[in-house]
């Protein structure tokens, strides 16, 4: 593996980070993706666009989010200081609203009246339904049947917000299948429909767009930690499904060589293919460590020996996905970021610990980063700091956790 010290991470004009990324789609989608790329590049240089987005982020979503010193969790761990970046405090309860607002403004610039989106845990679906309500756009959300079952509260929220929720019964009935169905809708309705993709994956320009809109997390966090502790943190840690909250936190720090970037994948309930969502896991039976193409982008993809995409398992719907965003694949191969995993059981342990010690109930996705963060701080001196991205709140998971505890 090549281990060059990179200080920046930008794709080429076709959306490639090294060999990763790109645009692997049916021909019909090329034109709308090019149109979206052009509009995004124009918006990116447009101060009016950013003024409007920043105002919405502040007045509607609730930015900036605080950087909270989690002192009791720090004391419990007994090592370096743990800070939470409180994305859970945003309107709709997770970082997803950052991207949804940005892309809704793009949809409006492109004069699209209909917005579609996929959702796993339902947080991106809720964020999309919310911004569509705000902008008066028609909204259709695709969600796997298994996720509809385990995230019933979010389904109800989306419907309250005026969105149509379409249950997807194909495949494993989770996030991957919802994305397939959203892509099929888009390919059919390209003329009037905006596809508001929720994670840093899919064909170019989506990984770039989502990262740009989520990078506000890291920009704020860098300023906040410098003003709180007078120096950069030793490490950042965040859960990684497709990878939007983690890339949002990491990106600003890529040039800060002394800051370790640590992504936590869903270890699920075992090492075998189908039992986890650890795309970088390279043991022979795991199905990980394999480069492939899924849903428009080249990255690490869990798959069998014949190139069929594997199903995944995670207690958290938001991490239950077979591929990882292409920029993460690039950061992994260049050695700039590290990727570890936490099992379902560890995630539940982190969930309960965070609730009891800090009075914060984190999303099950976010919970994957908590036990690894504790282990990490124990290896570090007490006057060092780490930032954990508290990407979402756990209200949506309370029923599921109650069911699991009863078993």
């Amino acid at each position: 593996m090549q281990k060059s010290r990179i200080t920046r991470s930008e794709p080429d004009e076709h959306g490639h980070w090294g060999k990763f990324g790109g645009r692997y789609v049916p021909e019909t989608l090329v034109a709308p993706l090019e149109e979206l790329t052009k509009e995004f590049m124009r918006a990116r240089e447009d101060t009016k666009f950013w003024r409007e987005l920043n105002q919405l982020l502040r007045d509607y979503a609730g930015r900036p989010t605080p950087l909270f010193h989690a002192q009791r969790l720090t004391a419990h761990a007994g090592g370096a200081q743990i800070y939470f970046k409180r994305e859970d405090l945003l309107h709709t309860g997770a970082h997803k609203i950052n991207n949804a607002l940005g892309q809704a403004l793009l949809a409006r610039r492109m004069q699209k009246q209909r917005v579609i989106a996929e959702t796993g845990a339902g947080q991106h679906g809720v964020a999309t339904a919310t911004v569509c309500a705000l902008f008066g756009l028609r909204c259709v959300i695709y969600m796997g049947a298994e996720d509809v079952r385990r995230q019933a509260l979010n389904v109800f929220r989306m419907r309250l917000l005026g969105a149509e929720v379409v249950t997807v019964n194909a495949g494993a009935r989770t996030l991957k299948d919802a994305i397939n169905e959203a892509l099929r809708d888009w390919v059919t309705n390209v003329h009037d429909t905006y596809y508001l993709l929720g994670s840093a994956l899919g064909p170019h320009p989506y990984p770039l767009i989502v990262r740009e809109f989520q990078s506000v997390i890291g920009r704020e966090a860098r300023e906040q930690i410098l003003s709180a502790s007078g120096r950069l943190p030793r490490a950042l840690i965040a859960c990684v499904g497709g990878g939007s909250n983690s890339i949002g936190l990491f990106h600003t720090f890529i040039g800060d060589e002394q800051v370790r970037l640590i992504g936590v994948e869903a270890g699920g309930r075992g090492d075998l293919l189908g039992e986890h969502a650890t795309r970088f896991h390279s043991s022979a039976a795991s199905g990980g460590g394999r480069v492939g193409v899924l849903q428009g982008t080249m990255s690490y993809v869990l798959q069998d020996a014949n190139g069929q995409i594997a199903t995944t398992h995670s207690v958290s719907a938001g991490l239950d996905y077979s591929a990882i965003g292409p920029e993460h694949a690039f950061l992994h191969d260049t050695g700039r970021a590290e990727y570890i995993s936490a099992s379902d059981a560890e995630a539940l342990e982190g969930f309960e610990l965070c609730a009891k010690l800090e009075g914060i109930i984190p999303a099950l996705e976010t919970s994957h980063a908590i036990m690894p963060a504790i282990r990490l701080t124990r290896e570090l001196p007490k006057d060092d700091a780490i930032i954990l991205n508290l990407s979402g709140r756990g209200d949506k998971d309370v029923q599921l956790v109650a069911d699991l505890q009863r078993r």
Partner: protein
Amino acid sequence: MSRIRETFAALKHLGRGGFIPFITAGHPDVATTELLLSELAAVGADIIELGVPFSDPVADGEVIQRASERALRNGVTLRDALTCIARARQNIDVPIVLFSYFNPLLKFGEDRLAEEAKRAGVDAVLVTDLTPEEAQTWTEKLIQRGLDPIFLVAPTTSDDRLAQIAKQARGFIYAVSRAGVTGARDQLTSDAAALVKRVRAVTDLPVAVGFGVSTAEQVREVWRFADAAVVGSAIVSQIEKLGGSPDLTNRVGDFARSLLA
């Protein structure tokens, strides 16, 4: 001259349109696919497209999705599809296009695929989710081994891109009749004829039209403005309905023949 070029030259000479049926490899099982290849050739297919089943067929409608799922449940692989073709090749001379999503080919190995596809008697390869921008080395590998890379064009494709695509393509251009996934539609839209006209302005390659072509009437309509009609979901749907019946092969053959009536 490639078998595909010969076929289109012959069609032109005869002054008739070409018929290109599509079936999914291993649907309902590998042995039947092998029989179907011969049957379709016998009833008048000018070219046959054989689909490699994939777990995440984003360009396909429900009929072909179900066919893929069925084949994958039977454990059908790309290797099985090639074996099928190699066996059928002993009896038939009709050109065969391997139709696949990119990931199974990538996993198989691009060089190895090009080599083994050629050996099995494949004439061309169409990769649904591989655009010319990402396909350059892949295209070269196919051409080196005498295989034709086929590309899709869509009503949304700009004239500039049509020219780019035509430069990389060999054999024929596959024009997608309308924005959407595969599957039967009651009517062809005017998009298809307009697209074919735009393609003709940039290349001499023959043009086949597919996606939504499902009746004899629609086949005849396509022939009025294009060189060949591709029928997929309508045939796959017959195979699904007849699944397990002892005379499946003959009856699918009858259905295919009826499309040419």
